[in-house]
């Protein structure tokens, strides 16, 4: 599968992956700018307001009804941070014209609709409609507070605070209740105007008529003039080994541990990191799974995740309070084993083979293809077809993984301690 890059307009770049493999077309439209913590609450609400209404479809149900008419055009608008980069994204999926009646020109209708959603919002007196903003504000505040109902999310959010310390980019894209309350119809409109100044990147995977698609994009999307060069990789501070604890109502404790890793932001090393992570904690054949769950029965799930942009790794497990110290020790021990080269041939082969499969499988899903292209773009690297990624992976030796493991350092742990009775 090849990616075709087209500079369609100044500040509008198109990344096309034409394929007949899928029955739907996947698309991401990204307005890319630089993170401005002062705008986060506005952009978070703006995503909700634009998703729910526009001049032609003022009510949420009218938006939804039109999406249904478009054979359940599925779209989502959200705002994401990648360190200094702020990606205001409309991601969507629609049924390929081949499976629809001949006279149903879905591509035209989809782009007309996106135009309505983005460029013709519901305004009143030079700002967003205050009633709409009020409802969204209340809804979003409730949703933000609901994040704390999940112990996994609560832990990650607090861990993020500890990891990033006073770092300028620690600011979460999930605004707080206080920040959301400060948003006004006017501030929202100002944030909207700033958003329209951003350049646009569009990623499309599926079967389409390229010429027609380009025409639709030029007709319906207008990139701004602002050009930013945000930094995407940030070195996390390594302050001290520290443990934090919070007691909450949950019936099971949640342990999170943060490790700093060597640089994992170039393609070659990235694969070593993926392999290290697979053997250490990401799969159900990992050392953590085998020892903490299977041997000691301390948890039902345990896993580790790489955070590439900040060169870190997070281990998470739902455990019983009484096993806290033991679990931490077991995690250390597994890392130590990897650094000492105690990686069996079976573990290494399973890691390599599983990653190869994952790379190949990423081409079976339109969304994964887009994510893969975007992940490479972040690193200024071309999209590597799975076969080439597999070839890269095959060059990695056990010694590379051991070298990587030696560079992994424990930094913080966070225990969300259970209080509730079972």
């Amino acid at each position, binding site marked *: 599968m090849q990616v075709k890059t087209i500079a369609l307009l100044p500040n509008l770049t198109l990344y096309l992956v034409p394929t007949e493999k899928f029955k739907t077309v996947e698309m991401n439209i990204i307005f890319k700018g630089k993170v401005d913590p002062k705008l986060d609450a506005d952009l978070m609400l703006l995503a909700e307001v634009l998703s729910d209404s526009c001049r032609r479809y003022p009510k949420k149900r009218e938006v939804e009804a039109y999406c249904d008419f478009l054979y359940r055009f599925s779209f989502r608008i959200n705002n994401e941070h990648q360190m200094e980069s702020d990606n205001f994204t409309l991601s969507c999926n629609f049924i390929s014209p081949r499976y629809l009646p001949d006279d149903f020109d879905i591509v035209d209708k989809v782009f007309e609709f996106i135009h309505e959603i983005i460029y013709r919002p519901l305004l009143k007196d030079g700002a967003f409609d205050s009633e709409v903003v009020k409802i969204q504000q209340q809804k979003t505040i409730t949703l933000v507070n609901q994040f704390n109902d999940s112990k996994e999310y609560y832990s990650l959010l607090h861990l993020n605070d500890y990891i990033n310390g006073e770092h300028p980019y620690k600011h979460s894209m999930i605004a707080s209740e206080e920040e959301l309350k400060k948003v006004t119809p006017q501030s929202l409109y100002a944030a909207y105007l700033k958003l329209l100044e951003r350049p646009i990147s569009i990623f499309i995977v599926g079967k389409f008529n390229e010429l027609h698609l380009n025409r639709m994009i030029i007709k319906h999307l207008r990139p701004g003039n602002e050009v930013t060069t945000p930094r995407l990789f940030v070195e996390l501070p390594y302050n001290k080994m520290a443990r934090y604890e919070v007691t909450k109502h949950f019936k099971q404790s949640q342990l999170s541990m943060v490790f700093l890793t060597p640089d994992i932001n170039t393609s070659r090393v990235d694969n070593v990191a993926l392999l290290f992570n697979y053997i250490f904690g990401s799969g159900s054949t990992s050392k953590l799974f085998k020892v903490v769950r299977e041997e000691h029965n301390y948890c039902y799930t345990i896993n580790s995740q790489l955070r590439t942009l900040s060169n870190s790794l997070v281990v998470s497990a739902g455990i019983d309070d009484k096993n806290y110290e033991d679990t931490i020790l077991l995690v250390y021990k597994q890392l130590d084993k990897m650094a000492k080269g105690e990686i069996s041939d*079976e573990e290494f082969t399973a890691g390599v083979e599983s990653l190869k499969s994952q790379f190949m499988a990423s081409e*079976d899903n339109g969304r994964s293809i887009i994510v893969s292209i975007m992940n490479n773009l972040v690193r200024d690297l071309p999209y590597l077809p799975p076969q080439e990624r597999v070839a890269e992976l095959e060059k990695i030796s056990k010694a590379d993984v051991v070298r990587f493991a030696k560079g992994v350092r424990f930094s913080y742990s966070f225990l969300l301690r259970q209080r509730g009775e079972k």
Partner: protein
Amino acid sequence: MGKYYYHSIDEVVYSETCSNGLQVFIIPKANYNGVTALMATKFGSLQSKTTIDYQGHPLCIERGVAHFLEHRIFDYKKGPVIDLYSAMGSYANAFTSYDKTVFYFYGTKKIQTGIDLLLDFTRELNVSKESVEKEKEIIINELNMYLDQPESVLLHGMLMNLYKNHEIRYDIGGTEQEVRATSLEMLEAAHATFYHPKNMALIIVGNVNVTECFHYIREKVQTFPVVAQNKYQLEQIVEPNEVNCEYSSVELPIACQKVMIGYKHLPYPPTLDPKVRNKNEIIWSMYLELVFGSSSKLNQKLLEKGVIVSPIDASKFCGENYSSTIISADVYNEEEFIKAIAENIGTVNFSSVAFERCKHAEIAAFIRNLEDVQGLAVNFVYNFFDGVIALEDYDVINSITYEDVVKFAELYKIKNRAIFTIKPKEQVK
């Protein structure tokens, strides 16, 4: 080998019944890199209260045995199944539902070896008393994890309120006590009975050579010893038409109140043609979408009035011997929400234009499912056990008329309702 081509969606299903009774289906996807193979048995938590004729004596099995068995089957005699798949670069997992247990793997190569293993490890149980005891702690950890998930608590509370005797009111995994009471003998008896090939199906979706694949499976299955299926007797449960409890609530430290409203219906007669039942269930889903879905008037009204936080979730909840409609939302105003649902259920407040839109959405959901090899395999096996071929749904959806959906509203003439709610509890600092 049977072959069915579905022209409108450009999909083919091949099927065959093996000599031992195992049903095999293949849906080829030539352009894909990966393959999912899934082995399923009609054994879930609803079959838990069963007496099995095992080695000449009757044996009563515990609740949660289906789920327990799912955990232990992964411990195959040649090594942990997950490791064996991992060595092939494949990913394997399993899940237990109310009436099925499903094992599957996903991989991009060595598919034949993967299918081979799938056929073997589900057939042979390799457990010891020690391994059963060890697994209990892991399962209890899993059950505790669900206690921290408000959505699980909400559904469980609802089913307890709707049903008085039916097994559906109990957790799929059982309680901690039931898990602790599970014995090696129960697992062996349940396996010998419900993992019989006649009770199972194998579905393969993805990039495979169909002829070679069938040939291989046929040869493999012929080497299996022929064993008779144990006789078993499901506990006969009489479930009253009335709900068990009309209203109950619990308090949890959550941000926003959750309300679930259930309407209990008479279950489908067992003699009903599965195709008729399937069409009826699609109509049912469309009716709920039209009255309570995100493009309904009611949903918009309740959001604007600040009654609900997020869109209403309304779905059918049915299977063998149970049938209900479940409607839930995160709410600001419980009373108003309950009142609004009561006023709207059973009404026909949608136009034929809205119906056509809903049909578009239903077709799109069906097409999207065809793209996801794993989702398609699961959907296929669920429908197959219910006597339906999922790929036929495209034509079924197209055949549904506005009048069908209007007529369906009559289901709600008898309003047999239960409510369960989780109220936010002030957290102790």
